[in-house]
């Protein structure tokens, strides 16, 4: 279980990188990616990356 960023709608603003409590979000080339092995989906709390993302449905559960 992990979150995933839709690169086609991501604006690369970096707000999620800033907020991720497990430092699972980073820039790879021109796009941001979420490292599935360390993402905890914020352990049952609303995911912080989704809460801060300005684009609806850009970050979703996979």
């Amino acid at each position, binding site marked *: 279980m992990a979150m995933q960023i839709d690169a086609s709608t991501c604006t690369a*603003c*970096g*707000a999620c990188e800033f907020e991720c409590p497990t430092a699972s979000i980073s820039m790879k080339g021109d796009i941001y990616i979420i490292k599935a092995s360390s993402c905890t989906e914020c352990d049952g709390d*609303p995911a*912080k990356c989704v*809460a*801060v993302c300005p684009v609806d449905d850009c970050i979703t559960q996979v």
Partner: protein
Amino acid sequence: MSSNVIPLSSIRAKAQMAEAAPKPAGGCSASSCGSSKGAGDMPAHIWEKIKDHPCYSEEAHHYFARMHVAVAPACNIQCNYCNRKYDCANESRPGVTSERLTPEQAALKVAAVAARVPQLSVLGIAGPGDSMFDWKKTFETFRAVEKRLPDLKFCVSTNGLSLPDQVERLAQHNIDHVTITINMVDPEVGTGIYPWIYFNGRRYTGLDASKILHERQMEGLEGLTAKGILVKVNSVMIPGVNDQHLIAVNEAIKARGAFLHNVMPLISAPEHGTWFGLNGQRGPKPMELKELQDKLAGGANLMRHCRQCRADAVGMLGEDLSQDFTMDKIDADAAYDPEARRLYREVVERERADHRQAAEAAEAELSAAAPAPAQLVAVCTKGGGRINQHFGHATEFQIYEVDRDGVRFVGHRKVENYCKGGYGDDDALEDSVIPALEGIAAVFVSKIGSCPKRDLAKAGIAAIDAYPFEYIETAVAGWFAEAFGAERRDLA
């Protein structure tokens, strides 16, 4: 480079000419009082901080340039007038940028611009995103620039949500000015502007979002003024949402020590993809904006010359050289000559003193004129406080109000220019220029063709080309006194 940057040589020649010319009689020394374009009734310590800042000082915007760098793209609130996905080099409005920079790239770019534009006096960080939410990148940029250009002033703009946490850090960095965008002091009004905020690790919506934002904005404003940092407040005027409410905003921010209030019109079109744009929310008409600004004129000092720059703007206000300074065109070894900047400042000091004297002489001429109703006029200028632009080249008009009490700057109106590479564009004149000049009695130009002059006359607007390269005050007062003040006395 755009012709809007005043060439150093021309301004120096004018300053020398002015020195040789006999000085007009002035009532008092230029540094202490007189012209509404100078220090006016502003306390000396505030004037000292803003006098070379084009965005804060109405006078400085004729002489100095600013640049913005987009280094802090992350934001913690969503506004209905903002769509951060937007990126287009032809768009000129806040929050729009074509290029995001790392702090180190930004410092290189600033040094390259400073080498070519001696007018550069201010570096701002103004989105897209929020400079105080993304504070690490903001302060990293200031540190990198400080090393290269110690004389540059910094300013930041913010939505205020993270501001209270950064007041201490801002004070350490010796940043003179901060701009907070405050669109409401009543959270009920805020619900129509802010769909959500992100605060302390979670998203808030509705009334809760606006309540928190409002409290944090007021806390940040009070914290900054307590530290002696100047605070300007930006408000976006949204007809039917917060237009009348901005009177209460003006009172609230003045009570908390804001030194300047800048009311800006909402920019909204469906193609911008903002919530307001997609839902048919219109922006205010120029006369609606002026009416509101007139109502606020007794409150916090009001700013009327804002150009709503894009987030990577470079140059004098009203122009944008950002496409000349994209990262691929930056020469990392650009020679930076502090001497050229020092020289430019010296010349500007002299030119400003001369300008103030001309403005005082114009005021004296007006006070001696016969009583007549106030008139609104439009001016074509490339800077320097002079009428020095061809009518057909103007993409914006500066609007002044004139009566026996003086010549006052009241705003600017953007238009599509009439002259398109040698031929006149009648559609631009009919659909853009003439509607934008609603309520204007005369337009002052360095030159104008006979066709547009005739079309303007048909619309009831006089085109005045008798004062090329004169100071704006001199020309407008001369015209007003002649047209309306038949009984004016000759001045000693």
